[in-house]
């Protein structure tokens, strides 16, 4: 049966391998460039004691950077091109009737087919994720954004889980709909919908977020690659104030909330006037975030969710395929 799976899907799998190879070469070349760029920037800034301010530094190549962001969509490709046709194409062309009349049960047929394709999907997601994670090292050190949505999703373990989920979704859609094209549409739509719902509404709540209040004059930045969920300024009455203004802002507080002594050009020019400092002391900043230390816990939870969803989809597929008339 393994022989048949390979014989049937070797072209698809070889195309996938070729894409991975090209991607790997691109990322290795630009990644090595970036690493040396980052290293020399560090050497230079250490010499001038200016390592705190690297905001203007840009690493790597814009096109490759864009490609790396596009790997957000890589897992669903496995579901679309490998998963959706896996059963649907056989039902459509009737070849399932050939396969199922050999001396092999439908259960075994599905298990071996789906098993190898899930492995292929995991390799696909895993290789891309490993390359992207390595490539993004210097950028994460620079921007501390590994936990942010969009970055979290393309690094570490989760791309493997997404690819497994996409594959399971494709197989399930193909089995239920019996036709490849509608299965493709459902796989794409379903993948985007589930990913969006989980990333936007579920992920922030995997663990209860940490909120820190701080003096606006002192400011506060959590350590490392944290994930900021909310941030703002509380006024003297303890309610959040609108910091959305085009006017001048002193220590994060719009000047309109403050006495004239805070207004430019007084502010910033010298020490803050005592009346202004007193006024600022009545404002508090807050930041709600997931600390950097939770990164791998979150990766684990999200991986678990998608692997579980994949398992449910495959169970449904097996039940439908075995119960239904061939």
């Amino acid at each position: 049966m393994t022989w048949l799976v390979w014989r049937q899907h070797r072209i698809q799998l070889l195309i996938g391998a070729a894409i991975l190879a090209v991607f790997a070469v691109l990322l290795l070349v630009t990644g090595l460039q970036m690493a040396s760029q980052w290293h020399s920037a560090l050497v230079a800034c250490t010499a001038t004691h200016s390592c705190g301010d690297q905001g203007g530094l840009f690493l790597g190549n814009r096109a490759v950077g864009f490609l790396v962001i596009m790997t957000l969509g890589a897992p669903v490709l496995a579901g679309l091109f490998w998963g959706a046709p896996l059963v649907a194409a056989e039902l459509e062309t009737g070849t399932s009737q050939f396969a199922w009349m050999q001396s092999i049960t439908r259960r075994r047929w599905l298990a071996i087919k789906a098993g190898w394709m899930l492995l292929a999907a995991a390799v696909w997601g895993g290789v891309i994720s490993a390359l992207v994670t390595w490539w993004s090292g210097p950028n994460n050190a620079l921007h501390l954004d590994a936990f942010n949505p969009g970055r979290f999703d393309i690094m570490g373990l989760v791309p493997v889980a997404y690819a497994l989920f996409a594959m399971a979704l494709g197989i399930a859609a193909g089995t239920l709909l019996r036709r490849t094209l509608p299965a493709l549409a459902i796989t794409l739509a379903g993948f985007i919908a589930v990913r969006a719902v989980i990333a936007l509404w579920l992920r922030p709540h995997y663990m209860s977020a940490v909120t820190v209040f701080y003096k606006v004059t002192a400011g506060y930045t959590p350590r490392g690659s944290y994930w900021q969920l909310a941030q703002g300024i509380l006024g003297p009455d303890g309610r959040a104030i609108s910091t959305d203004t085009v006017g001048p802002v002193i220590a994060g507080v719009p000047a309109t909330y403050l006495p004239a002594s805070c207004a430019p050009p007084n502010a910033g020019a010298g020490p803050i006037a005592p009346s202004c400092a007193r006024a600022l002391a009545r404002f508090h900043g807050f930041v709600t975030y997931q600390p950097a230390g939770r990164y791998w816990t979150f990766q684990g939870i999200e991986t678990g969710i998608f692997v579980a969803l994949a398992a449910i989809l495959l169970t449904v597929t097996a039940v439908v395929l075995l119960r239904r008339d061939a």
Partner: protein
Amino acid sequence: MTPVIQTRGLAKRYRRVRALSDCTITVPEGRISALIGPNGAGKTTLLRLLAGLARPTAGQMAVLGGTPRQDPAFLAGIGYLAQEIPLYKRFTAEDHIGIGAHLNPRWDAASARDRLRSLSIPLDRAVGRLSGGQRAQVALTLTLAKRPRLLLLDEPVAALDPLARRNFLATLAAAVADGGLTVVLSSHLLADLERVADHLILLAASRVQLCGDIDALLAEHHVLVGPRKDTTAIEKTRTVVQAVRTARQTTLLVRGNAPVIDPDWESDEVGLEEMVLGYMGQDTPPPIAHLTTVGEDQ
């Protein structure tokens, strides 16, 4: 001896459509059974039920001594070829032989290759690029290579030209003569199968009209030709399958061997085609037709 196929009250319903109703048949080992019936009579449904590709909505069946099921040993005994001739279009015949070798315990690759070579069908060309008849031959060859104990063929000769048809049926007859093989092959044309079949299952309107040894069935049926008159006397002792009345005479196809005493009626032997067509013309079987199976040592 246990029959290879035995069903009782088998029925299959697809949503609101009755594909097969109250199907009771018996096929003993070593027979070539012609499954005949007009289009839509339920032939494909019956074959799919026997192969385990579909589940009955009612009734029981024993195929090769057990219920059709998902079990490698059961599947190894069944050779089923669907009407659509399902093959992997981009694979060559040789690829298919390879698949069979990997998935079946008793695969006869050598004779499959020999058969295809003798039909001058290229082994190394994608089957999608073969002609329809050649594809059918490849599919039949693969089904035979599995060395099944029961061969279920759905309209196998439809795609073949007359010569290939004869050739194929001869192969089939030889395989059965070697022993251990039973065949059920469907067609809506009796002429296709008349040469090799020795057993008949006649389906019409999703019901079994006749099932049994062809010679025994023929011996039971007669054509009575007589004047246009009341047939009540005859209907008391025999079953009238079909009655054709013209202005001058009445022609009856009857079942049953009770002697005809009335000298007005002339009794004649009936041909296979005549008998089959007589049954196809009607929707409900006469009471005895679906209750008894003729010519079997049960």
